């Protein structure tokens, strides 16, 4: 022990000692599973009997699996439905909260509460809000004499219902990131613009939004990555139904892996999800053209 310490010097020795726990953890729960999962995706495996190597068959089967293609489509609609609107609303709320007004803390808390709460619990609450017979939402719509949508009960409305709920849940998260971005914009810029006679909207579109483009890029990319992995609210609110209209990709992976015991097949799907997310992250890095964080 002492000789190793002398050989590499005290500092390096302790460096390796300190990173040992996290390295072992990553080896066991990240790097090994990453490779095992890739191998698994090339096998037929029910998780109980020995698996047999079948090459790329899982991937070719997937390309013709209507349920999988449907889950990709549903996920893409979910991403397209939540990400842009979620980002725009978060920016709007952040800009409003960045004014010198009273009760800022109370407002911020209201928007942030959904972020910290359990998705399972709020999804349960929203399921009851959306109840077509006795729910609050249709109750209010009825009072106003408006159309009462069938929400979670219909193929046309179920995914939209989940999208609305998810925007509500995630708004505060992006709002906080935007608020942090707004604090980096120098007040003198706004004052100069004011002197030049720019009104509030001009300041928003010519100063705030352009200067927040890095924040926006980050918010959008992170939202896309998270939205591709949506699961909890689907499991609780619709269980993928009605008629697979909310069966997102992670839900289909979960079903295959743990209900149908097709672990090889599920791994192939997970890798396709990984590739999609990898491409998005790669695009982000290209756009920001960042120097690495180290």
């Amino acid at each position: 022990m002492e000789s190793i310490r002398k050989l590499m010097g005290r500092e390096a020795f302790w460096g390796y000692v300190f990173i040992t726990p996290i390295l072992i953890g990553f080896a066991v729960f990240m790097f090994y599973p990453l490779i095992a999962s890739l191998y698994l995706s090339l096998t037929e495996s029910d998780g109980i009997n020995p698996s047999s190597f079948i090459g790329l068959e899982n991937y070719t089967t997937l390309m013709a699996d209507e349920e999988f293609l449907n889950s990709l489509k549903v996920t893409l609609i979910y991403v397209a439905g939540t990400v842009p609107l979620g980002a725009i609303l978060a920016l709007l709320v952040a800009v409003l909260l960045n004014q010198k007004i009273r009760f800022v803390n109370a407002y911020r808390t209201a928007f942030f509460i959904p972020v910290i709460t359990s998705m399972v619990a709020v999804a349960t609450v929203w399921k009851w809000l959306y109840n077509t017979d006795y729910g609050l939402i249709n109750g209010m719509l009825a009072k106003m004499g408006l159309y009462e949508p069938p929400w979670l009960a219909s193929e046309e409305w179920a995914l939209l219902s989940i999208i609305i709920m998810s925007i509500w849940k995630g708004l505060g998260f992006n709002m906080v990131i935007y608020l942090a971005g707004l604090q980096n914009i120098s007040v003198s810029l706004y004052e100069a613009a004011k002197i030049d006679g720019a009104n509030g909207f001009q300041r928003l579109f010519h100063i705030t939004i352009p200067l927040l483009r890095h924040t926006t890029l980050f918010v959008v990319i992170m939202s896309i990555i998270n939205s591709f992995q949506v699961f909890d609210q689907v499991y609780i609110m619709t269980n993928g139904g009605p008629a697979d209209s909310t069966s997102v990709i992670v839900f289909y992976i979960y079903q295959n892996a743990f209900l149908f015991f097709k672990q090889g097949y599920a791994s192939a799907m997970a890798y396709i999800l990984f590739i999609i997310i990898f491409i998005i992250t790669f695009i982000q890095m290209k756009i920001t053209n960042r120097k690495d964080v180290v």
Partner: protein
Amino acid sequence: MSVKNEAQAGRIDTKTKNRIIRFCVHVMLIAGAITMILPFLWMLSSSLKTTNDMYTFPPTWIPNPVMWENYLYMFQSAPWGVYAWNSLKVSVLVVIGHVIVSAMGAYAFARLKFPGRNVLFIIILATMMIPYHVTMIPTFKILRELGWLNTHWALIIPPLFSAFGLFLLRQFFLGIPKELEEAARIDGASYPRIFVSIILPISLPALTTLAIFTFMTQWNDFLAPLIYINDELLKTLSLGLATFQGTYTTQWNYLMAGSFIVLLPILFIYIFAQRYFIEGVMMSGMKE
């Protein structure tokens, strides 16, 4: 508004204009805040209604009579106390382990020089974009081999190792002045000693942020308990609520009471630790 200002006609215009703008801002924010809070009020109100009261249309807001018994009945119909204890136990142990593992790693990556440091850090950081579901199935198999399926080990051990925690603390440690350490080095303090008696105490805010954020993530986690836990008495609150929903599909008043029980502890912590929640989110925004 003072008389002096009224005399200056031009200023009045901008002042009134500012007032109108501020009024509009408040209206928009109040509308938004109500939308955010309404579901929680509806949950509370529903949880205190009689079953008859639940099924009236259009719905009413004030429960009459107020059924505190719903909570009693709910506690009798499923082992909520056990769920809550399990959630607390798992979350607290993950917080402790995660903070220790992350802090140790972060100290080495931020302050100590050793061959391969930057490469290792970049590799670990790069795993942040890997979706959980890619490693999920092999992790399940590893836990089965270890005999940890359907035990709390399955919920406690894997989340101890995260790139997020490592990154967050490393970022903070990098900002600590080198002089503090050098003075201790001259006094002959070892690296572990510097870590424990200089770095950790100075980093308390960052450690708290990570602890709170980790607690929230674990408390709310659903997928891992869903996959790993079958035993009724080992379930966490999230999973317990999901099971409860499967059994009491139409008893919405009990379901709302259950949801409230799941939310309450986090809301309670938020009251006291607001800034750490917000900082946790801001730090996750700093990955950029």
